[in-house]
């Protein structure tokens, strides 16, 4: 089982960031009467929200216990349904806040307050009626949970396969090289995506990530969407082709080569509609791919830096 060196570096960075944040917090005691000072002159830049990989956080880092207790009440009321009662992600798919860039990179709760004013529409509503003191208390609670979570292993040991076997599968039974080339479209792919994203997109590049946690510690950049192709043939012989936007038994919507969105009503086989999927080979492979083949492919592609 190999852990790529990159992960260790990222893990160490995350650890350092949290230590800085905890130290910064210790220097300030935000309260309702005396608003916290503005962000420190050189606030730690938001960094990948990563747990410390095997390196426990400083469990003695001071947390205002009373603030955390008040924050817990607010958290249970307003946040826990999505983010879980311990802030580590919950039923509605809310992210694990103990690994949040906003919370871990923010010594003053100013970023958090700004974030809560807007939320993350449409998934997360705004919580713009919370006072500064309440936001600060919530942050104290999440930080306390963060410390409790210290020392836990994040999802870093994803690369468990055999790169050489993956290369053989790529060029052999997997027939990946029918469409892909490691010196062309996949050149440098191992530097573009983290291993979880890469593995997910090996199975199907249309997949869109994790639940209930955003399990990749990076801000994931998804590859460009690969739309299905559709050809519509009218009874008079007129043909329209384009990228499919949507389809049902009753209509088909496409974007034609001029970029125009066009909708056709359907009535049985009129007009004639033919859909092809450029990713069909992935879908076919998904049904037979073994875990070993998937792990080996990932181990191979992460080496393509």
């Amino acid at each position: 089982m190999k852990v790529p060196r990159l992960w260790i570096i990222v893990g160490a960075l995350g650890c350092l960031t949290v230590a800085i944040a905890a130290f910064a917090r210790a220097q300030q005691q935000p309260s309702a009467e005396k608003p916290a000072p503005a962000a420190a002159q050189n606030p730690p830049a938001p960094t990948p929200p990563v747990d410390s990989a095997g390196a426990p956080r400083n469990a003695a880092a001071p947390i205002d216990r009373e603030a955390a207790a008040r924050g817990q009440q607010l958290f249970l009321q307003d946040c826990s349904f999505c983010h879980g009662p311990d802030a580590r992600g919950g039923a509605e798919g809310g992210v694990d806040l103990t690994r949040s860039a906003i919370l871990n990179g923010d010594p003053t709760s100013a970023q958090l307050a700004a974030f809560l004013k807007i939320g993350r529409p449409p998934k997360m509503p705004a919580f713009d009626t919370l006072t500064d003191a309440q936001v600060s208390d919530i942050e104290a609670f999440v930080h306390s949970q963060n410390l409790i979570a210290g020392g836990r292993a994040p999802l870093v040991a994803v690369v468990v396969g055999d790169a050489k076997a993956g290369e053989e599968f790529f060029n052999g039974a997997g027939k990946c090289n029918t469409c892909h080339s490691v010196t062309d479209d996949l050149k440098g792919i191992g530097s573009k995506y983290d291993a979880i994203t890469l593995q997910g997109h090996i199975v199907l590049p249309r997949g869109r990530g994790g639940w209930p946690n955003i399990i990749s510690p990076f801000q994931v950049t998804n590859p460009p969407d690969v739309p299905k192709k559709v050809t519509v043939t009218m009874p008079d012989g007129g043909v329209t082709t384009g990228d499919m936007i949507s389809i049902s038994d009753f209509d088909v919507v496409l974007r034609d080569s001029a970029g125009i969105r066009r909708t056709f009503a359907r009535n049985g086989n009129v007009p004639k509609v033919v859909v092809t999927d450029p990713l069909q080979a992935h879908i076919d492979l998904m049904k037979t791919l073994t875990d070993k083949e998937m792990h080996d492919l990932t181990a191979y592609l992460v080496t393509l830096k």
Partner: protein
Amino acid sequence: MKIRTLFATAFALAVPFGLIGQGPLDPALLTKPATDAWPTFHGDYTGRHFSLLKQITTANAHELTLAWIFRTTSSSEGAIIGGQAQPPFPGRGPAPARGGNTGPQIKATPLMVDGVLYLTVPNHTWAVDARTGQEVWHYFWQGRGVIGNRGVGMYGSWIYFETGDNSVVSLDATTGKERWHQRLAPEGASNFSTSAPVVIANHVILGAGGDSGRNSDWVEAIDPETGDLQWKWVVTPAAGQPGIETWPSPEAATLGAGGPWQPPTYDPELNLMYVTTGNPTPTYNGRAREGANLYTCSLVAINPDTGKVAWYYQFSPHDTHDWDGTEVPVLIDGIIEGKPRKLVALAERNGYYFVLDRATGKSVIVKQFAASNTYEGTDKNGVLIPNKEKEPSPGGSLVAPTSDGATNYPAPSFDPLTSLFYVNSTSTYSIFYLPPDPSAPSGYGRGGEWHTGSFVSSLKALDYRTGNVKWEHDYQEDGFSSATYPGVLTTVSGVLFSGDPSGNFIAFEAATGKILWHCSLGAARQSNNPITYMLDGHQYVVVAGGDSLYAFYLQ
């Protein structure tokens, strides 16, 4: 079925209200297929979602037209307020309503009694005029939100519903005024309660769920008049109780969840109700709870008078993929190998169709109906054997189906005339992860899931006796998720109502799958179980799409 004299009292309390004759619920309606009412979550106790109405037929379904729309987001001012949460809180006020995390989603199956519909979104209950779609009253509970609410239960003139913060509230159906409320789970518990109460004789059956924290889950019966607890059955066993040998420790069992978050079905002759249970916790982390983890992901037959378990059957032993066993247990009086049998049939989230003897719990059929790759056959009792290699793992395990399941809680339907069991399903895969050392796990166990994608969504018509596919309609688009799985309704006139993943509400010919009619509900897909009732000589079909309720009829 015992009909208690208490109902006489309930009738006496009924007071006509305004221009609509809002009357009490006749309990006899609960034991026979209703035609001029939809008096309980499943329409009747069988869970068949099959109606005897026949005004809408395969010949005239194409003439269906919109009767009215009720929008929860334009609900009028002046809701009756209950609950104790102190502002500020995210609900913000009675209108517009808010539920789940993307605005109100009507996942509830409405009841319709005496010309009035009763429906919910989390923490909100409405009475709506079934003739016009106009609001009669609106009750709003101040408290934390929750993923969904399945609806209300009714006893005489009284309404019951569960709130996001684990209270149960009883309202007067005529006025919407609160009679009482009480806690279902203690303050601050990580439970969340979403089930629709079901009334059986003088028992209001409630379910307390929750699988995102550290808690036990249970079913309980309360007195309809006073709310007093009659009995309580906790899904996971305590030390010394049967089933504890399927957990590594009593503590693991106590915190093992198994939420019974769906309303049960009920056989009055056997006096058994059929309770379905959810997944164990920590959800993705099986290492923390070696064993079968009874009675999670199971069907459990319970005597509603005593709370005593008659039998159980587990669909997903030692589940590690969030495959709640909470799909509808459909009661079928059928014939297997020439012999009449009392059966219960379920299409489960794990991709298998099950038929059991509902008197004994003995397995009759186990048959795969959608993509599934995590079982190694069945044991001598007809119980699936999970493949340990497919549990979530550090490198990822490619698994069909996703945690959303091959199907989900929205109702399938059984039509005794076609002998077909109809279910919406999706074939789909996820990669399930679990860190190498998730110490002290809780909730989801720090695992994770990458949804790789689905490749077909279908309406399937299964022969109930075999699970074989008689016909299936592949929708053009795939990708139902748990929030938008459309429920199914069939009628004696051979019409099947359901929805596609593109947002269309569709009438099919039940015998063949031929499409008869459709209406687009817009971006909001069908989000609940359709119901049907007769009113003023019209057969109405009522269905929800997101924040709105739509009624169709033949004009």
